[in-house]
């Protein structure tokens, strides 16, 4: 089908150049721009979920709840030592009490924290892989004997709503992408039907001289492909500028969930393929429309 794009010059003349064009390239440019935005959003969300989400979800925070600062420090050292000998952990980071006080000070006030409220001893632990429930249970069983009162918070638990939201947004992007492709197909069908009406007499004459449906379909396919390529180039250009602008803003976000998130490597490949895919889709729809319309002619 794609080879039909390369028509000899004399065959191209059978339908005057520019008659299908009109607003078609611009409509396709807008549709493609929106399609690329939807696809990029979906891909960025996948990237963010994979990078930020996975990083955070593979972490746990151990809280040593011991009011006596001396015992608390001793227990934290013991737990840290035990953790360093455990397999499957990529990072063990005891949080100094001073840093914990700093974190609490905006809410409780610096003086109150120092004097009256015992603070927990904190150790951030990162697993090499996101731990499942069984791994977490084994981990808890190994750590619990090392301190009198210990609590283990898995970040994956409080991240569950975040992952649910991400999944919903990714599905939404996919749905929008699908709707846009359907709308693009509908636009092509309407444009080709209108062009078919305009050129009905030429097509009938071709038929009477032994022209085949495929010969007629190729003429329309080529026109639609040119429009789609032109519209695709414009839509892709505008989308690329938009991504460049947005990605700068995105990189400036320091939120733990979004920091460092970027388009996955295959994302750029997918985005580059979309204009070609839309062109192929437009050609296919044009061919289908013409062939089904011509079936009604003898």
């Amino acid at each position, binding site marked *: 089908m794609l080879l039909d794009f390369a028509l000899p010059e004399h065959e191209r*003349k059978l339908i005057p150049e520019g008659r299908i064009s009109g607003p078609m390239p611009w409509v396709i440019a807008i549709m493609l721009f929106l399609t690329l935005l939807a696809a990029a959003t979906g891909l960025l969300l996948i990237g963010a979920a994979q990078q930020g989400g996975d990083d955070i979800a593979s972490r746990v925070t151990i809280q040593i709840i011991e009011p006596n600062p001396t015992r608390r420090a001793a227990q934290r050292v013991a737990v840290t030592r035990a953790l360093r000998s455990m397999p499957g952990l990529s990072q063990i980071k005891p949080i100094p009490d001073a840093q914990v006080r700093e974190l609490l000070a905006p809410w409780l006030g610096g003086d109150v924290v120092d004097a009256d409220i015992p603070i927990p001893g904190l150790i951030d632990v990162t697993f090499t892989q996101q731990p499942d429930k069984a791994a977490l249970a084994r981990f808890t069983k190994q750590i619990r004997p090392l301190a009198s009162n210990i609590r283990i918070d898995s970040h994956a638990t409080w991240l569950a709503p975040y992952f649910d939201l991400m999944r919903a947004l990714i599905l939404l992007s996919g749905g929008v992408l699908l709707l846009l492709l359907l709308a693009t197909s509908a636009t092509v069908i309407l444009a080709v039907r209108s062009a078919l009406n305009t050129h009905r007499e*030429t097509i009938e*004459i071709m038929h*009477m*001289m*032994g022209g085949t449906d495929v010969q007629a379909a190729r003429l329309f396919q080529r026109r639609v492909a040119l429009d789609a390529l032109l519209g695709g180039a414009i839509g892709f250009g505008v989308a690329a500028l938009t991504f460049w602008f947005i990605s700068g803003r995105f990189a400036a976000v320091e939120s733990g969930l979004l920091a460092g998130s970027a388009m996955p490597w295959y994302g750029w490949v997918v985005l580059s393929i979309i204009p070609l895919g839309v062109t192929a889709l437009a050609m296919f729809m044009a061919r289908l429309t013409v062939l089904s319309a011509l079936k009604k002619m*003898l």
Partner: protein
Amino acid sequence: MQSVVEFDNVGLRYGTDSEILADLSFTLFPGSFYFLTGASGAGKTSLLKLLYLAHRPSRGVIKMFGQDAVTMPRDRMPGFRRRIGVVFQDFRLVKHLSTFDNIALPLRIAGIQEKDLKGPVTEMLSWIGLTERAHARPATLSGGEQQRVAIARAVIGRPEMLVADEPTGNVDPDMARRLLQLFAALNKLGTTVVVATHDIHLLNEIEGAQMMRLDKGRLSDPTGNLRHPPRPLVLKN
């Protein structure tokens, strides 16, 4: 002798109207020349449409080149249509194509290479006296010039059958005679020619031509030859 066209009890109606053509049974033989006459509304154009496969009949059997044209699958039609040249009453030139491109159209549709079609098209342009207007669009041509282009387009592919609907209606008598000579020359090369006309003077131009007369959709056969091999064709000088 194998026939080019066989009609057996053919009828044609548009929608639920009464039959515009009824009980047509005749045979056209290779290399024969037929004039189709009849009053306006007698059904000449409808009969020609059946001959160039623009319509299927409402009833009856039509055989074209030995094949059943009534039940012929759509995808086989183009191959048969390429064997038929058609001169439409309203010319039906492609408006955005030049004279040259209009005449070349059947050859291009048949997949003839550009280098192979330039010679025949140029020769045809010269023959119809429109070499100077090779690049003109139909809208800038006179009625007679358009008619000549339409005829040139119909004959350029040396069809096995030529169907012409009032082909000399818009040209002067001298050009009409020249065009008829072109048809006769093609006929001598073996093309079966069917010319629908009102012009009774044309009927005497080609000796041996047979006449088919339509009257209210029914065919009369004044020469009585439609079902027999034709006599040898002699063009009057």
